């Protein structure tokens, strides 16, 4: 069912055009090379895929449905909206596709311990889940700010046996969690595998994360052809680092008729200075092992970001998305906090599906795009996760529960 060819591969150094690469401290260069070699070896091994795809089918619950959201389409007007239901995966978000893949790689390499960074907590939960299944020790680095707004996920990780380590440095959000996980990995790389959660970081992570998530777009492509008899006109995904976006969009890259849209978090508005739109508002820079678009000041100091959604609250973006954007293959859109909240409520009321705040960014933009199109056209939106983890944030934003401090 799945195409295992690696298309649009980076060069030998992990570069996508001028982006990507391996801008890592010397201590990590050899461990990264070992992961790269293990990945290519595993990817060429049928037994690796047999186990991976079996877990994806019988543990994760793939293939996830492609749902024609008729009520949402009627409420929006315009193109037919189809939702790729990654929210229905085990653990409630697409992140598990990648942690299964990297977890198998870690086991294959004989590593006894895994670590990960997490923003919204979904990647942390997905990592803790795989660690529990594989019997590995698991430490998750999470900004203290993010822990406060995603407490249900913190507790889930603990229940799964993971140790959640609060990060207070810098802005105490996702970027600082990555810093802290990298610091730990430098000291522990001999027995520890760093399960990187987004399509960023030093080579080979952008490639690994993309390859493990392409099941999303490959399924959606086949399902759309089967259900609608044609490809979508537009494919839409939200972008923080870019894991769900690369997963959905990559398999459509060679379909010239399909517009690919990345939706960034506009926070309080793109002109407010308080957002996480690194493609729209950033410039090329080097952070966390790769050259990509960053939100930074004139002197290269990385800036704090704002989004109502912890999973999008990151000042960088995957290098391959930066490359696709620069090449003109990727269109940008942006959704504010308020628009995301509205989209979350609209989908919930019209379809009985409560989406994650991250995915609500894609929904809001997808609906805007659909509105300007004809009824015989198709907009495919990646519903990357479910909203349970965000209820506290949503209830506060709606004024249903009291805002503390």
């Amino acid at each position, binding site marked *: 069912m799945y195409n295992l060819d690696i298309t649009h591969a980076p060069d030998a150094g992990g570069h996508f055009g001028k982006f990507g*690469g391996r*801008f890592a*401290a*010397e*201590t990590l260069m*050899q461990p990264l090379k070992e992961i790269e070699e293990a990945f290519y070896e595993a990817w060429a091994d049928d037994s690796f895929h047999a186990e991976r795809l079996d877990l994806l089918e019988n543990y994760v619950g793939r293939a996830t449905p492609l749902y024609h959201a008729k009520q949402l389409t009627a409420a929006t007007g315009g193109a037919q909206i189809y939702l790729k239901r990654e929210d229905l995966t085990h653990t409630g978000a697409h992140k598990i596709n990648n942690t299964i893949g990297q977890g198998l790689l870690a086991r294959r390499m004989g590593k006894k311990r895994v670590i990960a960074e997490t923003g919204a907590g979904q990647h942390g939960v997905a990592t803790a889940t795989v660690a529990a299944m594989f019997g590995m020790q698991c430490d998750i680095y999470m900004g203290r700010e993010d822990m406060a707004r995603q407490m249900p996920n913190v507790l889930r990780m603990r229940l799964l046996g993971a140790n959640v380590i609060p990060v207070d440095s810098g802005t105490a959000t996702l970027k600082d969690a990555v810093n802290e996980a990298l610091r730990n990995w430098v000291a522990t790389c*001999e027995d520890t595998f760093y399960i990187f959660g987004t399509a960023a970081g030093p080579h080979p992570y952008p490639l690994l994360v993309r390859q493990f998530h392409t099941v999303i777009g490959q399924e959606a492509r086949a399902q759309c052809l089967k259900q609608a008899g044609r490809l979508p006109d537009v494919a839409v995904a939200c972008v923080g680092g870019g894991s769900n976006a690369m997963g959905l969009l990559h398999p459509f890259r060679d379909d010239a008729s399909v517009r690919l849209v990345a939706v960034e978090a506009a926070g309080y508005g793109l002109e407010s200075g308080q957002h996480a739109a690194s493609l729209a508002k950033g410039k090329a820079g*080097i952070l966390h092992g790769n050259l990509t678009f960053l939100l930074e000041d004139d002197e290269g100091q*990385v800036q704090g970001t704002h989004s109502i959604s912890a999973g999008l609250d990151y000042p960088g973006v995957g290098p391959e998305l930066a490359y696709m954007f620069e090449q003109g293959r990727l269109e940008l859109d942006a959704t504010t906090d308020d628009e995301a909240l509205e989209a979350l409520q609209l989908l919930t009321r019209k379809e009985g599906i409560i989406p994650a705040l991250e995915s609500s960014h894609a929904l809001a933009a997808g609906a805007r795009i659909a509105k300007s199109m004809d009824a015989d056209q198709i907009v495919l939106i990646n519903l990357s996760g479910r909203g349970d983890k965000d209820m506290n944030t949503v209830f506060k934003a709606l004024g249903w529960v009291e805002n503390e401090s």
Partner: protein
Amino acid sequence: MNSAIVDPSRLAAVFDRCKQEGRTALVGYLTAGDPDVSTSEELLLALAEQTDILEIGMPFSDPMADGPVIQAASERALEAGTHISDVFELTRKVRDANPELGIVLMGYANVPYAMGFDLFSERAKAAGADGVLIVDIPAEEGHICDAALKEHGLDRIMLLSPTSTDERIQLACDCASGFIYYVSLNGITGADMGDMQSIHEKVKHIKAISDDLPVCVGFGVKTPEQAAQVAEFSDGVVVGSHFVAHITQAENKADIRAALSASAASMRQAVGI
């Protein structure tokens, strides 16, 4: 004195001089602008008096390879409003007072990248720097900076670590000039020092490959005893977090300066035997 036209191999001269004097070079680190630009100037000048090579840290928002002590130093410097122009100005002041001192600007790729490596190298050289150490630009990514550094006569200090294979050691040595900085442990700055015997063996191994290139050892050197041990088999001993830590341990500027000077003097004595 015009520092811009001084011999580009000043670092080589430093190691030659130390060799002649029968001692190992002391390399000290402080973050520029920590805790503020004017105090930093005094501290850098004080440390320069005791060291052969001064590493001047360029503060960065995300110091991924640094432990809590140097992370905090970067945060203090940025909070105090330290700009890259201040880093160059501090460098110039240290250079003016210390014509023979080796000066290395140390930091992370994004700061020079944001300025552009050409302009960065030009300004670093004009300020009196001899070399540059960028933690997150390995030899493989040297294409973004090597030409600019070379054009402006700046040495590129390369890091090696316990995980470096022979292939990587060769790669780094081919790319490096000035000296090799051996990171004595798999970890971040300021961690506890690794086993001295294995550090010794790795340094010996690197020196066999590095040819004439001096090898300095750092990360985790906190006591004069450790410095003396490392001095026995290396060309230079790097002390960073231990010096930076004085900034939060003393009450006022004069006390910090006095503590730093005393600490640097005991380190200097330790490596001088």
